[in-house]
């Protein structure tokens, strides 16, 4: 029984690994709730992270929540929950309510951002966040701060010019940044073989003079290991790492998509069997850290939390239409305290 000790070998306490699992379960439940709300006509749009929770949980726990920076992408629900957002904040975003900390209901859900948590505001055009992360890392290097900037994106996005320009920039200056590709095999309908001319996104790293790492994105602990190593290296002045987590997008691209037009149900079912949450649960049970009853309790607590959050978010007010024209520029008296 060597397997069950993996998390300890990685320096993760039993508590931590259970917490990790809790975030994964919370994320999935919250994501599923959003689909229900969408199908019930209560929220106009969902973009889903189902299948990518393990990758995000592994990454999130390997970073330092007190000082590191995130430039996430729209599927990083689990990651931002680990970073301090909650079912409530994300449901506020899903309902487009004024209290949504990401954008006050201005952006679609999944467009994360929170200055006090060092989650840099994101947009929809894919890949634009990658040079931003390099800029954050450049500032850290210039000021001699020991922070790491983490940026994530899909495999389709790794073809955008901004990916290339940013990775090269970071490579030249050996900046403390982790490029994390969540390869979920599809960019909307386009499968990776039609998207990428290379077998792995990680194969691109040598073109930027640093290491590329491929990791099983359905295995949170393996992802933890890879991201921890990359973060340690970055903090030691060793520069960037490109990590490719092999995952699978279990849900359609978004609530506007119909994935039956481009992939078979068998393929999706096959992928579902490797789901990272089920694997983590099995691991914890093997390790004697979790039993079915505890798992059920956990899920009940999460359901309650989500119910409460849903109710809150649904009732919360929309932004006053009079706020439409605010914050185009800094307003009189605005001080950023920088």
């Amino acid at each position: 029984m060597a397997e069950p000790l993996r998390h300890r070998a990685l320096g993760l306490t039993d508590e931590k690994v259970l917490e990790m699992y809790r975030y994964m379960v919370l994320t999935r439940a919250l994501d599923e709730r959003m689909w229900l709300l969408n199908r019930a006509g209560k929220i106009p749009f969902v973009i889903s992270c189902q299948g990518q929770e393990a990758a995000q949980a592994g990454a999130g726990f390997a970073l330092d929540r007190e000082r590191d920076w995130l430039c996430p992408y729209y599927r990083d629900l689990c990651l931002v929950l680990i970073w301090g957002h909650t079912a409530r904040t994300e449901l506020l975003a899903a309902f487009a309510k004024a209290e949504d900390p990401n954008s006050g209901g201005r952006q679609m859900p999944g467009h994360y951002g929170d200055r006090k948590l060092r989650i840099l505001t994101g947009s929809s055009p894919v890949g634009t966040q990658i040079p931003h992360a390099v800029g954050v890392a450049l500032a850290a290097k210039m000021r001699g701060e020991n922070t790491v900037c983490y940026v994530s994106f899909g495999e389709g996005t790794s073809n955008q010019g901004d990916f290339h320009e940013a990775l090269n920039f970071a490579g030249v200056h050996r900046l403390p940044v982790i490029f994390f590709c969540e390869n979920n095999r599809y960019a909307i309908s386009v499968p990776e073989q039609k998207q990428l001319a290379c077998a792995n996104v990680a194969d691109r790293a040598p073109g930027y003079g640093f290491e590329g790492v491929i990791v099983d994105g359905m295995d949170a602990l393996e992802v933890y290991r890879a991201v921890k190593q990359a973060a340690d290296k970055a903090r030691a002045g060793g520069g960037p790492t490109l990590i490719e987590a092999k995952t699978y997008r279990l849900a359609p691209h978004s609530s506007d998509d119909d994935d039956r037009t481009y992939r078979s149900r068998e393929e999706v079912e096959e992928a579902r069997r490797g789901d990272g949450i089920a694997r983590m649960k099995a691991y914890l049970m093997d390790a004697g850290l979790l039993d079915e009853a505890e798992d059920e309790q956990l899920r009940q607590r999460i359901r309650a939390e989500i119910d409460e959050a849903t109710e809150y978010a649904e009732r919360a007010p929309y932004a006053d239409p009079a706020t439409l024209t605010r914050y185009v520029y800094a307003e009189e008296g605005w001080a950023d305290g920088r």
Partner: protein
Amino acid sequence: MAVKLYIEAIHDALAEEMARDERVFILGEDVGVRGGVFRVTQGLQERFGEYRVLDTPLTESAIVGVAIGASAAGLIPVAEIQFADFILPAVNQIISEAAKIRYRSNNDWHCPIVVRAPYGGGVHGALYHSQSVEALFTHVPGLKVVAPATPADAAGLLRSAIRDPDPVLYFEHKKLYRSVRGEVPEAGEPVPIGHAKVQREGSDLTVITYGLGVHLALEAAEQVAAEGVSVHILDLRTLRPLDEEAILEAARRTGKVLIVHEDNKVCGVGAEVSALIAEHALFDLDAPIRRLAGPEVPAMGYAPTLEKAYMLSVDGVAEAMRAMARF
């Protein structure tokens, strides 16, 4: 005449042009197997094959850049940008390259590409799936820019764009896709680029608009007609080159001009329309030229309150008509 949805008119015109001329091909993200995220190209890959309806990697600059190269080699590419908001990574290829190829080569090379992009709001698209980007391109010599409002014009202008020897940006308003239905001539005649169209005759004031604005103006004109205000409506259809003659004629017709567009106001297409009139028909005016346009915010919010506050409305247009009629 067949009655079609706006989106059907585009789909059918694409299919007919592809059948008519085998040099025509489509490229873009999700245009093939998926038939486009809006389903504009649905069924075309089955019909014309993988390469004539090519699913590209997620790279807008390459989509346009590859189209330019293919056009130089004799093909006629119709590039789809999934949302107009995402045309920005391709701006260098469009403005530095496509727009200047004929000029810089002294008429040796040319660049007969079409770039199609769904634009506009009112569909819960929030900041980055609702933008109007036409004014970034109407300033650029070497480009042509069209923005049809009706199914007939959508079909006819697409045909013209495909047959045009120069690069044409074709902006289709998302909200019109499935909300507007109209007659489309079977004959498949192109609608010439550069010609505006009077969509309603009137005598009290002139509305100059395009895209969704045409439909808002038509409805609003009905509203105020009941109150005795007679509105003349000019649909620009082509935003570059502007149909100066039609604009000046429409302005002179009533002496009162209201310009309406969803795009932001400052330095928008309406500014040029107004400046044209102020330059060439100033003394025919009985009222200041008014522009009713998107507010000066980066784009429209996701919250329904914010989206509504951003969007033009029939009531808002009618109100502006009344104010101008009273002037």
